[in-house]
Every structure is written in C-alpha cells, then in structure tokens.
C-alpha cells in the first residue's frame, strides 16, 4: 500500500504511462472512436514530455482537415 504523496504520484504516473508506439495507436484510434478518459489522460501526459509525438499528432490533425477536401477534390474533378 502506497501512503506518501510522492508514492501516490508515482503510482499515478505509472498508471498513465504509455510509450510512443502506444500513444500513436491511441491518437489514430481517436480518429475512429471516442477514447476513454484514461486513454485521453495518458495521451495528454505523454504529449507533455515527448518531442516526437506532438509532431505526429499535428500530422494526424492535418490529415483530418485534408480528407474532406480531398473527397471534394476527387468527386468534382479537381477543385480545391
């Protein structure tokens, strides 16, 4: 049983700890389903301490904006 505040903090960190591979998976899953709150907190915690994953997340955000426009481009024959 962990009693100290530091100990609780550590436990809390472990509980939310994810590596880049796992965070990438969650970020992409978020494009197709709503993430649970633990997943969202885990992603948020990781993005605060990682340099690479925020870039990946911005790439995903760009794709999210690009796809509806791509659909329009494809269907109309080339208008952006």
């Amino acid at each position, binding site marked *: 049983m962990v009693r100290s505040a530091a100990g609780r903090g550590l436990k809390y960190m472990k509980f939310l700890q994810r590596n880049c*591979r796992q965070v990438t998976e969650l970020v992409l899953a978020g494009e*197709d389903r709503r993430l649970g709150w633990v997943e969202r907190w885990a992603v948020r915690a990781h993005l605060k301490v990682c340099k690479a994953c925020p*870039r*990946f997340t911005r790439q*995903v*955000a760009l794709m999210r904006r690009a796809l509806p426009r791509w659909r329009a481009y494809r269907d109309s024959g080339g208008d952006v």
Partner: protein
Amino acid sequence: MPDFAEAVQALRPQLLRFAHAQLRNDAWAEDAVSETMVAALAKPQAFAGQSQLKTWLVGILKHKLIDQIRRHSREVSATTEEDREDIDALLFDETGTWREAPAEWGDPEAALGRREFFEVLEVCVDELPGVQGRIFMMRAWLELETDEICKELNITATNAWVLLHRARLRLQACLQERWFGRQPAAV
C-alpha cells in the same frame, strides 16, 4: 438529349477507375459503373445542371458501390500479405520509441491550399494495399461508419481498427515521402 448521353459516357473511364479503387474487383466495378450509367441516363432531368455532371455521377456511383459491397459482403475480406505487415515494427524500436522522429509538417494551410497536394494525396490513397485500402476508402470516401464496414466486410472491430491504423500510418509515410519531405523546410 444526345449531348447529355455523350457527356455521361465520356466520364465512364473516370467512374470505372473510382469503382475499381474501392472494390478492387473488375467485374463488380463494371457492374457498379453500368448501373450508374443506366440510372443517370434514365433520369437526365434529375441532373438539371444543379452541380457539375461529374459530381452528380459520382454521387450515384457511391450508392451503387455500397450496393455492390453489400451484395458481395461474404466474399471480400481476405487480407493480403501487405495487410499483415506490421508497420509499427518499422517505425518503433522494441521499447516503443520512434526509430526516427516524425517530421514537422508546418502550417496546414500551406499544403491544403494547393491543388498539387491533393493530387499527391489521391495517389497515396489509391496505392493503399489490400483490405486496408478498401476499408480506408469506405471510411474516408464513402463515409461509412466503422460498425457498418465491419458488417459488410464480415470482420471484427479490432481487425478493422488495426487495418485503419496501418492505412493511416502508410498514408502519412507516403505524404512525408512525396510531399512534405520535398517542401522547403518547415518553420
């Protein structure tokens, strides 16, 4: 209206290319396009010039493609070698850390405002392999929900998510290689 029929016929090759990209089957693609042509030629008054002819035809085609997918829902989900390829293992080491950090793509509008970007994106989508290509198109182009895709392709939700995940990773890698990696360095 012979002009109308001619204009519709002229778009047939493009419709066939779209149908094939979605269905990955020559016979089904032919059927979907033929049904589209029949439906369009039977009701020229439905077009009434309210949009571009191509946009109108593609709208009909999408419905016919969904019909085809439903009709063949039992036969279409055999995954390929490329579907099974573990893209994540290429991107991450054993500890789950990026082997090479993703690049900064910069201001989204710089890309999204350019027609050439969408040409590249189109090529990247068309090159998505196997079932992941079909699933991605069903999601992003036909705008079907994931549970409907699972039902029509007779696969589990977990499977669909894995394939969509791999499709999206491939797409981003393709855009990095063919677009963002070739642009002047992002700020």
